[in-house]
């Protein structure tokens, strides 16, 4: 039976590749593939020191030079992840199946264990693809370096996947049986206990660690702590895995392989031993996903909450669309959404803490505000898709409404515009209040200066956000086939190329949109300076804001006409 299921996986892979090759006849996929392959080739070849005579640096080489600390750091990270997965909300659907798999495999004479083996087998392709991509971006200097890193990383991802599935199956089993007490809490206690033992060992050695001068000495001390006793035992399975991709030589790799394989095997046997009834949840989820194939990664909608404002039955239609899209933000914002922001927050935190060593807390907070402001203005419009980009999936419904394309576009663009502008304004006010150290003797001029910069920023920020949103939504109108509709994100080399292509298009168009306004503002500012000797701040900002907003209004009107003529059949699914 496993052979048949393996054949099924192979047929699916073969047909998927065939479909991807066949669709290269469409320009969007062909251009996307060319750009995607060129991008990968750039990293694999041009940025690889072994091909480009030292023009780039091999990240794998850098990792190998710090193999010891990296191995230990990664092992500690895996330990924390392995513990967190017991603490975070449980996944009620640990084993995912497609609707067709549910229809054909669930009623077939296949055991639950075989179904599990099949799903774990199917997951390997994605993990292998991810490992290949990571290896390309790490720029190995030789084939030997490359395959050691690739197979090592694949083994880590494979083990993690199996472990996470095992944890979810165990927790679901406990839930189904209604068990509490030891069955529920023992794994949590063991996992947290393991972390606590490691943390306690490090804490106990803190004074001696603090006394060390060089990072090399600190690592040696940490390695000593992590290599013996209970800590060594706890970290052994994690280090057995992380040692593999970082092995400096083939001998080291082969020496590390048995340990890593043993960890993988133990996890695999543990998962296969599970007898959790996952079929019902899997079937329910598959049925839901099949009903909306374009929104496979649609986040779960939170229960109905209050609306941003009461919508009157008559008035401007744009307001209704803004109202709808603001509700969308509220209903989709969830713990999972916030968790996705964690890496960005950690990044900002690291930058702020580095800055914080040299200045006071107010300056640090002001710096954080400015970094977040830049992110809100430049990246915010790309990330927030509560506009036409998401609504393209509903275009058939929207086209049946008695409203013009321009009206629809204005409403769609205004919703993320309102949210991002509010965030930007808050950050500008925060930065203004916090920046620098107030000198009592020079309070008045300093405040005036700050207020003028603040006013200028308050005027320019919404204009830039509006311009970027107009460009992004304009791309959705002009090239709907290039946009991932709804919440779906297409995958593959062609999708990577499409995204690179559209991002470059957005940036170029944005610059083109801002340049005329910038030139006019600069000329006016120069004139004022020549006459008065004062460098104006608010006036050029007001000119930039006004001109950009006028440009956007005109462009939206023109795009609306295109949208009026857009045939829904032109908007095909991304996959």
């Amino acid at each position, binding site marked *: 039976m496993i052979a048949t299921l393996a054949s099924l996986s192979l047929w699916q892979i073969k047909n998927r590749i065939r479909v991807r090759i066949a669709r290269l006849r469409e320009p969007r996929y062909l251009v996307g593939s060319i750009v995607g392959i060129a991008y990968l080739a750039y990293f694999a070849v041009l940025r690889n020191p072994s091909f480009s005579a030292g023009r780039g640096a091999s990240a794998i080489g850098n990792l190998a030079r710090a193999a010891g600390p990296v191995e230990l750091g990664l092992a500690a990270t895996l330990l924390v992840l392995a513990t967190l997965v017991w603490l975070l909300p449980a996944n009620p659907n640990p084993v995912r199946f497609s609707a067709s798999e549910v229809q054909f495999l669930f009623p077939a004479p296949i055991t639950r264990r075989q179904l599990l083996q099949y799903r774990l087998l199917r997951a390997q392709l994605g993990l292998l693809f991810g490992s290949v991509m990571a290896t390309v971006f790490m720029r190995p200097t030789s084939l030997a370096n490359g395959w050691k890193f690739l197979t090592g990383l694949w083994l880590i991802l494979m083990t993690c996947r199996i472990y996470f599935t095992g944890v979810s199956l165990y927790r679901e089993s406990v839930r189904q049986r209604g068990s509490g007490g030891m069955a529920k809490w023992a794994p949590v206690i063991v996992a947290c206990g393991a972390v606590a033992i490691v943390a306690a060992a490090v804490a106990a050695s803190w004074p001696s660690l603090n006394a060390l001068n060089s990072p090399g000495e600190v690592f040696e001390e940490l390695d000593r702590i992590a290599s013996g006793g209970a800590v060594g035992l706890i970290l052994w399975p994690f280090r057995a895995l992380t040692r593999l991709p970082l092995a400096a030589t083939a001998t080291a790799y082969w020496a590390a392989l048995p340990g890593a394989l043993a960890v993988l095997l133990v996890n695999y046997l543990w998962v296969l031993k599970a007898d959790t009834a996952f079929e019902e949840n899997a079937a329910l989820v598959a049925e839901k996903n099949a009903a909306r194939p374009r929104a496979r990664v649609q986040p779960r*909608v939170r229960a109905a909450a209050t609306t941003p404002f009461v919508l009157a039955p008559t008035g401007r239609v744009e307001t*209704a669309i803004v*109202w*709808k899209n603001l509700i969308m933000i509220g209903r989709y914002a969830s713990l999972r959404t916030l968790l996705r922001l964690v890496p960005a927050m950690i990044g900002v935190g690291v930058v702020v803490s580095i800055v914080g060593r040299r200045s006071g807390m107010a300056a640090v907070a002001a710096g954080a505000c400015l970094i977040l402001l830049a992110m809100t203005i430049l990246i915010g419009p790309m990330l927030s898709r509560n506009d036409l980009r998401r609504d393209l999936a*509903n275009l058939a419904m929207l086209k049946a*409404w008695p409203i013009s394309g321009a009206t629809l576009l204005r409403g769609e663009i205004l919703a993320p515009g309102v949210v991002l502008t509010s965030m930007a304004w808050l950050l500008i006010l925060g930065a203004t209040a916090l920046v620098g150290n107030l000198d009592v003797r020079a309070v008045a001029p300093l405040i005036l200066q700050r207020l003028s910069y603040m006013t200028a920023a308050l005027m320019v920020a919404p204009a830039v956000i509006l311009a970027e949103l107009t460009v992004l939504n304009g791309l959705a109108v002009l090239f709907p086939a290039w946009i991932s509709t709804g919440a779906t994100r297409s995958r593959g080399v062609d999708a990577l190329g499409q995204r690179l292509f559209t991002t470059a298009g957005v940036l170029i168009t944005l610059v083109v949109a801002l340049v005329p306004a910038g030139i006019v503002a600069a000329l006016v500012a120069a004139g004022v300076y020549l006459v008065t000797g004062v460098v104006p701040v608010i006036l050029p900002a007001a000119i930039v804001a006004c001109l950009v907003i006028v440009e956007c209004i005109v462009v939206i009107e023109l795009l609306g006409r295109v949208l009026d003529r857009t045939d829904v*059949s032109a908007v095909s699914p991304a996959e």
Partner: protein
Amino acid sequence: MIDVAHLTKNYGDFTAVNDFSFHVAAGEIVGLIGPNGAGKTSTLRSIAGIHAPTSGAITIDGHDIVSSPVAAKQRLAFIADEPQLFEYLTVTEHLRLIARIYQVADMASRAAVLLGELELSGKEHALPGELSRGMKQKVAIACALIHDPKALLFDEPLTGLDPLGIRKMKQTILARGRSGAAIVVSSHLLHLVEEICTRIVIIDRGTKVGDGTLAELSAQAAGAGSSLEQIFLAVTNRES
């Protein structure tokens, strides 16, 4: 009320609808039937302004769907076979949104009547994810009827409805017809079409192959029989 004149709709090289014409007067309920891929949905989507006609003209209450789309759509409602709802809006919020789009001043009273008529009372604050397919279909119908349209397009209106829902749906369609709305019902359920439609248009491979009352169609397809099923199989040459 609904005038379709020489409609042709191509998708690339494929012609889905070819030189198709028909008229639906106020108060008339026209059944649009045809085999799979005959062009029924393409016709309805073209009338609704979702697809742009390749050639031909479509007018709703005298307003051309291409040159005056807003005025034409203001008088129209299209109920798709698959209910299209926003996952993040509740039932009431859907009605509120659609009412604003169609500028329905007395939304509250109309919504209350529709929710009762379609047995959605008690589900006002439910999200689509909490509703069955049939209930979602009812929400889509409530949204379509909130502005009291003069022309109604139903694409497979009974899909997913339970027996009571089917009965209610038939009553709703008949009531709208009696109140003067021009209605097109596209369906594979020939008994439904036979039961509620005043006239039937048969389309096959994008071309009209029959148009008239059941008696007229029976006369046209001489010898085929008197039931719509027999007539349909005869005029679409699928008897064998």
